[in-house]
């Protein structure tokens, strides 16, 4: 056991897998000698060599294509996209190839590729360092989509993803790399060392994919979210005075629907929360599923709190970010429906 922040936990996961399996390598822009712009691969170059902590040309499409070929030839590449905002040049290789290989070949070919992508805002990164594109990937059949909200889950989920034989898009909310974030920039930054989930085993362990986690039980409203917003939701719930049940989805696809349905059937109310832009975001899928599965239990409309449908602004970051106010408002509106 050590206290780790999220980058350390991710590095620890990579280290465990590379040590256990010579077929595992990390690759991407600046991930080799330098150890990644977010330091997630630091030390792996020294320990495993240039070919297993592989620097690449700046071509996301080329990187993913190469990873697919490697995967088909027995390796387990863990690709880093420097920012999720830069994953689109690889979109064709991901959506048309990586996701479809196994099906189109009748099961003959497949590539166990993991694509790690730091996502989300709150770091003054402007529109090209703040995006949350997870929803798009959940619409592409053949991909698994994961987003952890803390160091313990990050390590356990990443190990599961690397050992999974299906392709996994692994989003890392960069705002909480160094500590949980409760939605108010003014508040003094808190660190993972003060958080239970900052306690991470140094050894190998897995957190199964498709296992949503109830962070604390409640009776009035079910809150569905993931990544950074888990912590913002926690703070908002406290502020709202509503007895809400907070569920950290952890894995968006495949989705642990049972946990969600059980909760909503109990509370009869549901608020869906994410940082990504609202229209056609993953929240829409959650709302659609919940109202279809729990319609007869619902006492209030399922409300979405999400990013506005504009590019992520630079100067208005905190006005744009789904604030505690917007969340408490939604919680109270829901709770007030009887």
């Amino acid at each position, binding site marked *: 056991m050590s206290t780790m922040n999220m980058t350390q936990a991710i590095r620890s996961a990579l280290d465990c897998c590379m040590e256990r399996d010579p077929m595992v390598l990390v690759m991407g822009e600046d991930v080799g000698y330098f150890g990644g712009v977010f330091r997630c691969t630091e030390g792996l170059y020294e320990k495993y060599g240039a070919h297993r902590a592989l620097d690449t040309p700046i071509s996301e499409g080329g990187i993913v294509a190469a990873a697919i*070929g490697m995967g088909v030839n027995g390796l387990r590449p863990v690709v880093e996209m420097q920012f999720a905002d830069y994953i689109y040049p690889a979109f064709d290789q991901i959506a048309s190839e990586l996701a479809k290989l196994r099906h189109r070949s009748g099961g*003959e070919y497949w590539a166990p590729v993991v694509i790690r992508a730091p996502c989300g805002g709150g770091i003054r990164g402007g529109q090209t360092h703040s995006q949350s594109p997870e929803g798009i990937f959940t619409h592409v059949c053949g991909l698994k989509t994961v987003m952890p909200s803390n160091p313990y889950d990050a390590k356990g989920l990443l190990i599961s993803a690397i050992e999974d034989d299906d392709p996994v898009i692994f989003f890392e909310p960069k705002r909480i790399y160094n500590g949980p974030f409760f939605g108010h920039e003014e508040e003094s930054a808190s660190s993972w060392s003060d958080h239970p989930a900052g306690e991470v085993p140094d050894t190998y362990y897995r957190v199964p994919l498709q296992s949503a986690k109830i962070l604390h039980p409640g009776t009035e409203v079910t809150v569905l979210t993931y990544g950074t917003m888990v912590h913002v939701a926690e703070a908002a719930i406290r502020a709202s005075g509503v007895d809400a049940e907070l569920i950290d989805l952890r894995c968006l696809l495949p989705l642990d629907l049972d946990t969600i349905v059980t909760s909503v059937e109990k509370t009869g109310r549901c608020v869906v929360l994410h940082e990504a832009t609202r229209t056609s975001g993953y929240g829409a899928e959650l709302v659609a599923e919940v109202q279809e599965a729990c319609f007869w239990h619902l006492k209030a409309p399922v409300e979405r709190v999400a990013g506005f449908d504009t590019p992520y602004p630079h100067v208005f970051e905190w006005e744009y970010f789904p604030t505690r106010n917007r969340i408490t408002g939604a919680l109270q509106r829901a709770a007030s429906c009887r």
Partner: protein
Amino acid sequence: MTTNARKSAKDELPKSRLFVPSASSRPGGTPDFSDLQIPEVGAADKPPIDVEACDTASLSEGLVRVLDDQGLAHGPWNPSLDPQTLRAGLKHMLHVRAFDDRMFRMQRQGKLSFYMKCTGEEAVATAQAMALRNSDMLFPTYRQQGLMFVRGRPVVDMMCQCLSNAGDTIKGRQLPVLYSWKDGNFFTISGNLATQVSQAVGWAMASAYKGEDDLAVAWVGDGSTAEADVHNAMLFASTYRAPVILNVVNNQWAISTPASFASAGMTFAARGLGYNLPSIRVDGNDFLAVYAVTQWAADRARAGMGASFVELLTYRVAAHSTSDNPDGYRAKDEAERWPLGDPIERLKDHLIHLGEWSEEQHTSLQEELASAVTNDWKEALTHGSFEEGPHWPLETMFDDVFKDLPDHLRHQRTLLMSES
């Protein structure tokens, strides 16, 4: 509606100065291949396998040719194959052509939803497969069916794929000709052009990573070289010196679009030089030249000297596919005017010239293969027809999206099965 234009959108414009490439011919016109310089047979020199890319400039702009019009073989690139090998090559090419003709007719009779022939390009896949090891991994397009013939895939299996019937090893998932054959190290063909080329480089990088000496070999059409994947493939292959052979099959056309829209007015091979890849242009209708160049590139890669870039100059004699009619965009007689002849005729003449083959043998081999294909077709149909089946069980539609069936797909499968 506002405008970005400095002058109002409604002004008359001066004459356009935008250059737009032209075609070797259009309907009604006379085909013009004059810009195609065809060097002497045997003239191209053969460099050592440790050649530097810059020293292949003349090879990338020239054309490696071994077989002349009389069926004689010349020059340093002559692979000097024994007669059995030559006859095997001829037989493979004839087999592919017999297969294509039959499948084309079956599509016309409504037995298949779609088909694509490689008529006139048979030497490319067959000679290259013969020059490689069976353990080398192939990343083909839809026009290299010849690879499977050389590696001995049962013709019935290919027909079953085209029929999407119960015997289709890929479970009826893909359009006809988008084969996959793991046992033959033949990669699953994508409907998306060029994606396989950069994947092949990754496969080759893994081979080097593991210290193995198997190669990856990829093919892409002239038109498809425009796709970003080909750039990525060349850059990664060169950066990591991957053991891969990147082949451009230049058959002059991309559906209705002439190669001039992708060539930038150069040979395709020349593009490889800028990526520091030894690059060679070869007569793709010359079985011996194709064999020799492939062997040379394979030796380089296996010796750890990295990737080669090869342009195979050929001509797409047939329509692009059964959905296409070339009379709409090129002169009817263009194929006859193609200066590099037919690969089968040329190898046949060579064998006859060597005294190792005869017109009689040729005709009877053609008949033998035609009836073999007919029998294969009959057998394939016993595994089901496209329209009536039998097909794979309906529920298998949900398999292989993921390795294991997730809840939401199990749910959808139940829904579907309860309806039907």
